[in-house]
């Protein structure tokens, strides 16, 4: 029989990571994760541990829904940044940050910095990295993309 402690240790990282994806802020993700395990603790006798971690993730999703409802950030997106319908003549680009040497973390940093225009500090807080690491990823990625760009122009 698994005790609560074992279940907590087994699932806490996965639940926190899922919560991060759902709310994007570490401190909120922590609060939601703690809520999920608190709820599990309170209902421990009634819950079949075979339903874990799905049960915990459902709690997280519900809490995340409440969070977004409270913050009203979605309204800000709706009013300020509602995407215009794609125009047939314009093709969205697919290859801006495409390079086989780029790892997912490089693409994430590039997109957040140069498309989303987030600060280095914001990216670092979001990804749980140091600012130095983010700057390093960005510098490496810019170097690669510039090289790619130069080679493309030379070939033309």
């Amino acid at each position, binding site marked *: *029989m*698994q*005790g*609560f*402690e074992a279940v907590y240790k*087994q699932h*806490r*990282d996965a639940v*926190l990571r*899922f919560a*991060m*994806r*759902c*709310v*994007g*802020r570490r401190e909120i993700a922590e609060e939601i*994760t703690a*809520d999920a*395990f608190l709820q599990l603790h309170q209902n*421990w*006798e009634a819950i*079949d541990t*075979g*339903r*874990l*971690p*799905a049960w915990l993730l459902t709690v997280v999703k519900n809490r995340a*829904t409440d969070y977004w*409802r409270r913050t009203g950030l*979605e*309204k800000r*997106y709706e009013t300020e*940044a509602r*995407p215009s319908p*794609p*125009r047939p003549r*314009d093709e*969205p*680009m*697919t290859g*801006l*940050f495409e390079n086989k040497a780029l790892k*997912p*973390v490089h*693409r*994430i940093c590039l*997109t*957040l*910095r*140069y*498309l*989303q225009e*987030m*600060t280095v500090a*914001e990216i670092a807080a*979001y*990804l749980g990295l140091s600012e130095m690491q983010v700057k390093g990823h960005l510098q490496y990625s*810019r170097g690669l*993309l510039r090289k790619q*760009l130069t080679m493309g122009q030379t070939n033309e």
Partner: protein
Amino acid sequence: MSSGDFTRDETEFRQEIEAAVQTHRAAVGPCPRPDLLMAASSGVTFEGSGDVLRHLAVCPLCEQLSRDLAEYEFPPVSEAEDRRMRARWGAAPGRTTRSWWNWRIPAVTAAAAALLAGVVFLRRPAVPPEAISPLPSPAKPAPAFVLTLTKAPIRIPAAAVLTFRGDADDSKAYLADFAAALEPYRKDDYAEAASVLEPVTRKYPKTAEPEFYLGVSLLLMSQNDAAVTSLLEARRRGGGVVTDDISWYLAVALARSGKIADARAEAEHLCARAGDYKTQACAALGQLKAK
């Protein structure tokens, strides 16, 4: 969120990609913030989530960002976070650092000494109850199964393997379909995973992997009998890169379906050979025997 902290090199880089970014924005509109993007693609519904998902469907950069973030390993729970979370359900600070064994050994010694001396201290618990377990663990009846269920790791077959199996013509299409169908599974949305993997299992009747992940998704939703059926079908198809995984998850599914003898046979098979599941399969054998 607009950033004014660009270095000179970054400013130059932005100028170099400016034309492409403008063209992109003209085509798909402004991109939603990453937290909204991830929330919507993780299945969280909110007032603007429909707009975000519609944007995601037409914006390759957001689609790529969403995929990268879904795979990104956010840092695990830190010690400070762990302490704060435990505090929510009542564990006193600092108690978590003392293991059960730290208390148990002196406790047993003390209890033995008390017994020998014939002292009436036995009326008092030798170990403070709150110290025995780092977390208060309410009593719970033993579950009907003994094998631990965790999410199966994602293993995508190499194109070369598919070619070897004689699927050369379809291998590229298969990999694309399979990878797309795994997205909900990757995001822990097992109900959606089951619904999108099922047609892939029919479209590619020779491949084992979609059937395997369908089986695991069903298992994670406690649909044990259906999971057994899918996992047996995955094995019938040859197992592919998930051969050992099939045996383990089949053992778990069979145990949960009450077919202990069959579960034991699967565990014995894994325990007898070297592989990722050897240790846990051997441990499971002991549990299955005890039942």
